[in-house]
């Protein structure tokens, strides 16, 4: 059974600092997705990573995928308050489009 774990679960950081969120998964997959969720809202797609070594960047966020290590990272550079949200990674079961979501990382950026 595919399991997806994120760490940390909670992250409180100062504006201007850098940090990384980790997403580990338990079985082979080469498709990984990052989503953002604001309180009471739906999921917003951030990144689609479809191959080993894929790296995507958008603003202060950069995501990467290492399928051999079964690990994805979401790196935050010079955090700002607007990045406060819950971030989920999701891994697709090999050969299917069933997404297994991680536990989520609740990020709070302090001014």
């Amino acid at each position, binding site marked *: 059974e595919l399991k*997806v774990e994120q760490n940390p679960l909670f992250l409180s950081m100062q504006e201007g600092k850098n940090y990384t969120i980790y997403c580990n998964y338990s079985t082979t997959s080469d498709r990984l997705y990052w*989503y953002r969720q604001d309180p009471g*809202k*739906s*999921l917003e797609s951030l990144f689609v990573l479809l191959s080993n070594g894929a790296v995507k960047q958008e603003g202060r966020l950069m995501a990467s995928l290492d399928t051999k290590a079964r690990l994805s990272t979401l790196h935050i550079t010079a955090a700002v308050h607007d990045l406060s949200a819950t971030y*989920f990674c999701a891994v697709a079961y090999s050969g299917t489009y069933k*997404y*297994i*979501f991680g536990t989520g990382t609740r990020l709070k950026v302090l001014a």
Partner: protein
Amino acid sequence: DAGVTQSPTHLIKTRGQQVTLRCSPISGHKSVSWYQQVLGQGPQFIFQYYEKEERGRGNFPDRFSARQFPNYSSELNVNALLLGDSALYLCASSLDGGNYGYTFGSGTRLTVV
């Protein structure tokens, strides 16, 4: 362009009742998936439909059923509601079945009392 639309946005039901949730995908999207998100947790996969055929089912009891219509809209039905069914139900659509990611709707908040 309209995104994924879901209705209703909120509803309250009593234990034992039945509920139907509706979803309209983005125009041109042929795949619809349903997820359940309990407060404080990540979404859990319920169903996927592509071109009106069920392509996947998650670990949910038979009380949960769904279908996709010729216009690619979808309904999720839950019978014999339990308190534990209280959650945000998210519908997501994609062009190709989800390979390049899903676009999620705003969800239906179901409360079972």
